[in-house]
């Protein structure tokens, strides 16, 4: 079932510049956790504010559960946005913050208190309700902000870069909390982020926004393995693009014929392979390559290779690369099932 439906959504900021968001169509399935992913300046936060009602679209419609919410003020949309920073109101206690939306709606104090307490327990802030926001750690503030939104049981939860302000140790904790709360409450969630790893670890589905348009909308695994275009592949760290021609299940390129994985029937002129899929070392289908450079990246080593005039990059585990030096000959295998044919350029 569709929860959120954006149709032809367009927003321009000042006159004379290209629209920040241009004719965006997007559907989000009920109960899903979808990430709206795009580089900075791609209009993600604008999309989120349009859905939350904090901005008015120039064109297009926003439907929630089939009803248009385009002309509703934010407080009547049943959509709650959680900003990147926790934004707890400093003059209220943590519990008053969490109960804020209920009070604004005129919910009875006793009920507000009960729901607030239950919510605080869910985000593991039991006992901290009487504290002031400044007395909480960064991670606790983030959890309180999440509780403040979820206590309202919204039809749609919007999260703006929920992990990007956190350091590495808090990131995992917050991700687990968001995932478990989302599973428990089943709230349809849209996460906006510029960080592909954040999108991959959180979302069931990723809507990739490039230049104000939807470039691909699929599961993380699918985007990783089967990018819809070269731009999508590049955004996800793809670096190897071989020109050539596909015919009869075989890709003809400067490397000679490369058999494509079964089921690969459509035509295309660019073949891609992820650098971490390239295998170094002897094997039945190995090819001869020359090492051009090795760069240790912390947990992996990047090896730049020359295969008879064709340059490829491989990412490999540092032990495998420890013996390699520029100029060495090395055996390289391009596994058949890691090849992916890009349509178009």
């Amino acid at each position, binding site marked *: 079932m569709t929860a959120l439906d954006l149709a032809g959504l367009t927003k321009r900021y000042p006159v004379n510049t290209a629209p920040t968001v241009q004719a965006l169509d997007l559907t989000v399935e009920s109960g899903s956790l979808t990430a709206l992913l795009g580089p900075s300046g791609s209009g993600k936060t604008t999309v989120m504010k349009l859905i939350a009602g*904090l901005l008015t679209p120039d064109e297009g419609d926003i439907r929630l559960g089939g009803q248009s919410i385009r002309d509703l*003020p934010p*407080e009547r949309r049943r959509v*709650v*946005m959680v900003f990147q920073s926790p*934004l707890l*109101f*400093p003059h209220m206690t943590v519990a008053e913050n969490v109960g804020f939306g209920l009070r*604004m709606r005129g919910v009875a104090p006793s009920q507000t208190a009960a729901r607030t307490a239950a919510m605080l327990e869910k985000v593991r802030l039991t006992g901290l309700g009487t504290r002031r926001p400044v007395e909480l750690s960064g991670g606790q503030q983030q959890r309180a902000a999440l509780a403040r939104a979820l206590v*309202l049981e919204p039809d749609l939860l919007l999260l703006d870069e929920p992990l990007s302000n956190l350091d590495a140790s808090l990131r995992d904790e917050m991700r687990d909390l968001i995932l478990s709360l989302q599973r428990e409450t089943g709230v349809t969630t849209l996460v906006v982020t510029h960080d592909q790893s954040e999108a991959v670890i959180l979302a069931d589905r990723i809507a990739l926004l490039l230049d104000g348009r939807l470039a691909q909308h699929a599961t993380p695994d699918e985007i990783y393995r089967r990018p819809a275009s070269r731009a999508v592949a590049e955004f996800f760290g793809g670096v190897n693009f071989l020109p050539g021609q596909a015919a009869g299940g075989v890709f003809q390129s400067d490397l000679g014929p490369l058999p494509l994985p079964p089921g690969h029937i459509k035509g295309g002129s660019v073949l891609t392979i992820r650098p971490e899929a390239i295998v170094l070392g002897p094997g039945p289908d190995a090819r001869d390559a020359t090492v051009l450079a090795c760069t240790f990246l912390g947990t992996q080593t990047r090896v730049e290779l020359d295969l008879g005039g064709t340059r490829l990059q491989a990412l490999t585990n540092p032990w495998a690369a420890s013996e390699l030096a520029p100029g060495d000959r090395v055996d390289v295998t391009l596994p058949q099932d890691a090849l992916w044919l890009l349509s178009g350029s």
Partner: protein
Amino acid sequence: MRADVFRLIAGITLALWLVLPLVPLAIWSFAHGWRFPDILPRDWSLKAWAYAFSPTSGVVGSLGLTLFIAAATTVLAALVGVPAGRALGLHAFRGKAIVTLVLLAPAIVPGIAVALGLHGVFLRLGLTGTVSGVILAHLIPVIPYMTLIMASVFSSFDTTYEDQARSLGARPHQVFIHVTLPAILPGLMIGALFAFLVSWSQYLLTLSIGGGRVQTLPLTLFTFASSGRNDVTGAIAMIYILPGLLVLLLTARHLTGRNAALTPRVAP
């Protein structure tokens, strides 16, 4: 340590100089006659204070009137100054420099330059000699302080808190009451304090617009000072500086927790 000694002496001199003009006023208020060349009065009494608080002197009525005018001026200035301060503090717009100058000028251009023309305008409107006329006149120097202080308050206010509140279901007036107002309240208190003191200290605008019929405390003080009643003058002066002292003590403790409540903006 010679530097320490120098600092201490300079500090003591400064402190003495700061309180010195208040000393004869305080002594006079308790003096029962204080003739030249006595260093201190021979007899002390509470006569001046008793007189100041008696109905015949008119000081109590004058005090109430001054408080009312200053409070009304402050409230009116806040009503127009908070929105204007928001526009100046949060937004960039064409003509902002001009608007700032227009808002600044009434606070800096001396009262005498305005008072005479204003008297002519108010004469036609029937506002001379009335309390409302005096309040309106006081708004001229007070609105700028309020607006400019609120502008600096709003410039450090994060409006995403308001977006967050809207998104959590608050209506616009609820956002103002529950989120914006608490956030700007400390700054608004400082602005109100300045506004109050500027109106409270006003002499010429009250004299020219009130035409002697609106007898605020500084006018009463001047009357007694020029009639040679030094003891009553001393008592009124003490009463006159009391509210400022009180708000200073209150704001220093509650607003900042430090003694930094009053960093002057434009009030010489």
